[in-house]
């Protein structure tokens, strides 16, 4: 199954102390077959997704990456805490891996959980260059399970990443086939009346914004572990077993709403960090996020893992079954989501971003989840019924569980064990997430990466980041090298993540212990948003000389000769 299986098996047999594992990865041109179409792509060890790398916490890993492409490549170990020179972002961490070259990554594994790796060069990641990482903890897991599966989601598009970027620049709605039509106008008229529908259309038309701007990129086939809905990846279980499913969203652009009809899911980990278990019927997984859930099917029957895209333009499907070949019904897609004025935030008249900022700072220290019940209806035109403190009140994106049950919110995530001592942030940095859909430009504080100065942090600081989403799209913001502690109002129990989704019209805070010297990437993980400018370099100044020096040594030894 894996080229380096013997090596990894050996790694697992070694005693914990002095553990060292050597792994080999090749970066290759591959053919990807989604069941709907075949396309040329990029993979690892000859396939996409690449192998599942299994590490053990405390292990010192050496990963030899050989570039068989005719262009530069790189691998970023998404969510791993490591010396910056090993982080794998060309131009920021290291010079990149040239064609024909073998680069050896070398770093200690200082964490456990579910992560993933992917190329940080060009559009290689949307083209297929990703794989999963599973790290076994040094101690015992705080939950029990009998078997585990990685469930790696992605959105495979027939077009290459370069072509998609170009098309989006030429026509931002090139891939949007869920736009409002004449038919929807008439159905809205019969539902809401002519005047209401007319004034709604005029309001949106006046802003030149579309209520249908939920997904930039449609027309993909969603895959689970490289298999399309028809190819139906299947995981085997015995009734009564506890199964740990390690969900990883490796999509270029797609958020998924995940459910397993007939099964309750217990979320035990988010972004590799244990959380206090929470039972849900459905959860939304942002691009680049991971969630580990435990399910316990008791019946001798098949269950469908159904991951519907947030914009309802496609779905991934897999099956859990007692034996191969069994299937369960596949649900239909729900109605496409529509943005509301609440998702426009502070952009136009209604100063919602200010409001949510105010709300959050007021409720700091109090249980944030109770906010869900608070009535902001009087302050914002409320159009939707459901609510979630991490969505603008009345947002058209607020998810609801298909079975009417519990839908996971960030507010439900509480760290199992705090990773850091609780302390006051030393300063706050405001980052407005900005963009112009018509031009397909994306930026931070109105400045694209090409024009931006790096964000400078001081080693030892605890920085509070304030994200104000001024766009109508959801952005999964990913800081490399350091943890992102999302303020859900749970103080020291705030969940520790590597990717933080910021919904339209909302303000979200996260805190970071600046404990990793060097320079790091910080960006929206939607591939085409990052490429269009929603990206920053973060420089951590100062810090122990030993760590800095070690980082530098690694650069000059391994990457300096390129």
């Amino acid at each position, binding site marked *: 199954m894996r080229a380096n299986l013997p090596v990894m098996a050996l790694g697992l047999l070694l005693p914990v102390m002095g553990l060292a594992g050597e792994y080999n990865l090749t970066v290759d041109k591959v053919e990807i077959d989604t069941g709907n179409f075949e396309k040329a792509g990029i993979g690892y060890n000859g396939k996409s997704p690449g192998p599942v790398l299994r590490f053990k916490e*405390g292990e010192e890993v050496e990963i030899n990456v050989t570039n068989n492409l005719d262009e530069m490549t790189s691998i970023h170990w998404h969510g791993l805490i490591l010396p910056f020179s090993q982080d794998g972002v060309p*131009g920021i*961490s290291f010079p990149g891996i040239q064609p024909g070259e073998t680069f050896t990554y070398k770093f200690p594994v*200082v964490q456990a959980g579910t992560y993933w790796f992917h190329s940080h060069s060009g559009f290689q990641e949307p083209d297929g260059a990703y794989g999963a990482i599973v790290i076994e903890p040094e101690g015992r897991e705080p939950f029990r399970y009998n078997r585990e599966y990685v469930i790696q989601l992605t959105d495979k598009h027939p077009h290459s990443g370069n072509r998609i970027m170009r098309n989006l620049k030429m026509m931002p709605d090139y891939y949007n086939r869920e736009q409002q039509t004449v*038919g929807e106008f008439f159905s809205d008229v019969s539902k809401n009346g002519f005047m209401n529908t007319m004034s709604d259309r005029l309001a949106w038309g006046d802003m030149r914004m579309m209520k249908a701007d939920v997904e930039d990129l449609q027309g993909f086939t969603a895959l689970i572990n490289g298999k399309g809905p028809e190819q139906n990846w299947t995981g085997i279980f015995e009734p009564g077993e506890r199964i740990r499913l390690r969900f990883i969203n490796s999509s270029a652009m797609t958020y998924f709403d995940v459910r397993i009809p007939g099964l309750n899911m217990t979320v035990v980990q988010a972004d590799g960090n244990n959380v206090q278990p929470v039972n849900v019927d459905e959860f939304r997984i942002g691009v680049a996020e991971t969630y580990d859930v435990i399910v316990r099917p008791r019946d001798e029957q098949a269950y469908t893992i159904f991951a519907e895209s947030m914009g309802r333009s496609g779905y991934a499907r897999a099956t859990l079954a007692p034996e191969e070949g069994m299937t369960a019904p596949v649900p239909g897609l729900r109605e496409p989501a529509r943005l509301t004025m609440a998702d426009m935030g502070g952009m136009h008249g209604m100063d919602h971003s200010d409001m949510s900022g105010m709300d959050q700072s007021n409720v700091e220290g109090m249980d944030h989840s109770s906010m869900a019940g608070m009535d902001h209806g009087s302050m914002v035109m409320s159009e939707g019924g459901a609510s979630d403190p991490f969505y603008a009140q009345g947002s058209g994106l607020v998810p609801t569980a298909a079975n009417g049950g519990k839908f996971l919110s960030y507010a439900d995530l509480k760290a199992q064990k705090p990773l850091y001592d609780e302390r006051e942030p030393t300063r706050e940095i405001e980052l407005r997430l900005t963009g112009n859909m018509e031009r397909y430009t994306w930026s931070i504080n109105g400045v*694209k990466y090409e024009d931006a100065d790096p964000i400078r942090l001081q080693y030892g600081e605890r920085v509070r980041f304030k994200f104000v989403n001024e766009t109508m799209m959801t952005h999964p913001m990913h800081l490399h090298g350091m943890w992102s502690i999302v303020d859900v109002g749970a103080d020291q129990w705030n969940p520790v993540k590597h990717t933080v989704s910021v919904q339209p019209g909302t303000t979200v805070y996260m805190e970071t212990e600046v404990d990793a010297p060097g320079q790091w990437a910080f960006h929206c993980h939607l591939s085409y948003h990052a490429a269009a400018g929603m990206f920053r370099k973060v420089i951590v100044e100062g810090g122990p000389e*030993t760590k800095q020096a070690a980082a530098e040594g690694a650069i000059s030894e391994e990457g300096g000769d390129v």
Partner: protein
Amino acid sequence: MSRWTSLVGTAVLGLSVLPAVASAQERIQDTTERKQALKVWGAQFEEFEYRYSDDDEELGVWSGDFFYGTDELKGRWLTKGEYSIEEQAYEKLENQLVAQTPVSDFFDAKAGLRFDTPEGPDRTYAVLGITGLAPHWFEIDANLYVSKDGDTSAELDAEYELLLSNHWILAAALDASVAFSEDREIGVGKGLVSTETGIRLSYDLIDRSFSPYVGVVHERKYGDTADFAKAEGGNVEDWFAVVGARLSF
């Protein structure tokens, strides 16, 4: 916490200790593609069609453009033409080369040159224009032309797309041109010169790159321009049935 201590521990013990030189952050400059302005190109034909008029006139007509550049500065080549199939001659052949730059959230300004080289007298103009998206999704392209001889004229194109479904699109287009001075040689009178109104029903057959359509186009000349046309035995008003395709690649 355990991870924290193991991180420090491994970093300190596991890796060799080298003397620190200049700060690490100065070592790498991001010179990757990502740090450069994104350069994109595109080619589109808004119209690429065959027209058949109510007096049996047959025309091949196109209107397209090609661009290359960044968000801040694009070069654009616009081409427009009408080829009379009977006469085997270009009734209209316009090419523009312009530089285009954003001036607001939704509008770009452009400046450049226009070369008219149909059968008959040539003209060269300086072009100054704006193009972009007006509220309520009207695509606007407005240009001011100054010929070598100082004749000035203006042209306004507006287009609106109505989505019958996510693949069936009804597009209405209006082109109007106005002359501020007469150019008798090419049959242009002062005032409103002409309008062209079209309605096209298209279907997106291959993504948005190939969308065949059928439609109706109405052309009309006004004022002195209409008189000049009549004097030369031409039509003042024409109705066309059109069949063609919108292309983009």
